[in-house]
């Protein structure tokens, strides 16, 4: 493969790789650094690429390794991350002023419930062990096959299946317990609360009806509802969606709050 061919193919899945890295690191600078390092390393090692897997799998393996190197020493987030960050946000006037400024002026400053659902998953999934989080994203959002994930993660297919099953089970249990979009008893209402703040003139029920996961909540089919949650992530590019600037601002806030929280705890 020539360098030009590599660059062309890389560009075809670059946005997917970038969103994957963001969802792992929750940091735009880290994402951009790893993305660049992945490109450079893959270019340097291009002569060793034998085509035994797809180029995309091979490059995701390089990117995943770089991300794991960065994250291995970091503590994982608690599953109630959004509660902790909400508390911090309520005491941070500057954060809300910046958010409202983005909402008022940016072309990517919309607030949509489904965008917040994706943001929320990114935060909560960091409560999973790192291997489980990566495996889950690779399978459910980026649709790699188990065999490909085993190559990316340098694990056996059996272990990949274990990580997938446990990661998925834990996320289903957490969202079933917490998310009021799918469970009337759910304790977290942040997406609708924020929608009330950012879009005060909108009818909440009309907005909720736009989210299939909320429409299908009454089926009570947890697996189906989780699949719909994953579909939202699959369909959204956190760097270019209509709410990207606002959600990235929220993500950076949560990352900083978590950094301080984990230092203390």
């Amino acid at each position, binding site marked *: 493969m020539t360098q030009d061919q590599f660059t062309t193919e890389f560009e075809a899945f670059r946005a997917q790789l970038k969103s994957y890295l963001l969802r792992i690191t929750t940091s735009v600078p880290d994402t951009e650094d790893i993305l660049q390092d992945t490109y450079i390393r893959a270019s340097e090692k291009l002569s060793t690429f034998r085509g035994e897997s797809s180029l995309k799998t091979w490059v995701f393996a390089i990117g995943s390794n770089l991300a794991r190197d960065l994250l291995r020493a970091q503590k994982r987030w608690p599953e109630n991350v959004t509660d902790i960050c909400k508390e911090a946000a309520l005491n941070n006037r500057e954060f809300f002023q910046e958010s409202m400024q983005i909402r008022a002026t940016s072309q990517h400053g919309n607030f949509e419930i489904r965008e917040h659902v994706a943001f929320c998953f990114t935060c909560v999934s960091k409560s999973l062990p790192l291997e489980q989080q990566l495996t889950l994203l690779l399978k459910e959002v980026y649709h790699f096959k188990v065999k490909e994930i085993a190559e990316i993660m340098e694990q056996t297919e059996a*272990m990949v299946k274990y990580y997938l*099953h446990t990661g998925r089970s834990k996320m289903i249990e957490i969202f079933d317990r917490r998310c009021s979009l799918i469970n009337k008893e759910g304790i977290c209402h942040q997406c609708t609360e924020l929608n009330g703040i950012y879009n005060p003139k909108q009818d909440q029920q009309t907005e909720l009806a736009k989210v299939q996961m909320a429409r299908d909540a009454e089926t009570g089919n947890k697996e189906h509802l989780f699949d719909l949650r994953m579909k939202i992530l699959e369909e959204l590019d956190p760097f270019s969606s209509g709410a990207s600037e606002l959600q990235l601002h929220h993500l950076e806030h949560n990352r900083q709050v978590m950094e301080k929280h984990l230092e203390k705890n």
Partner: protein
Amino acid sequence: MTTTSTLAQTGNAQTEKERFAQQTSVSIEINADAAIVWTLLTQAQDIPRWNSTIVSLEGNIAVGDKIKLVSYLDPKRTFKIKVKEMEAEKHMLWGDNQGKRTFTLTPTEKGVTFSMVERMGGLMYPMYKKYLPDFDESFNKFAADLKKEAELIANAQ
């Protein structure tokens, strides 16, 4: 006393009692890779999710470490158990003052045979044996839960 080789392969637990000891054993065929079964048995934090006999399990399952286990058999009591031996995907031994529990995985054509044996006893055994609950049902559930979870994972696409 029952030995592993003569255990029922169907998940039907048996308890045999002697004057100073008792031994409960169960064995079951699991159609899953040994790595999956081993991981399920050794990821302490995940065990209460799939194992209906365990209320909670704290600590790491690693040789020399102590774990704190609460079982539905006696949920008010916390068992402090030492992990004494581990040979990945083959064998594990837990123990405390009253007894020891051995987990064994034996390769088969379709996966593994899982065996679990708990031996309790000593000079004080005659004094406390009447307070011991029946272990058979709990062993059956443990084996059945492990089989169900491991095969669910193994059959995922």
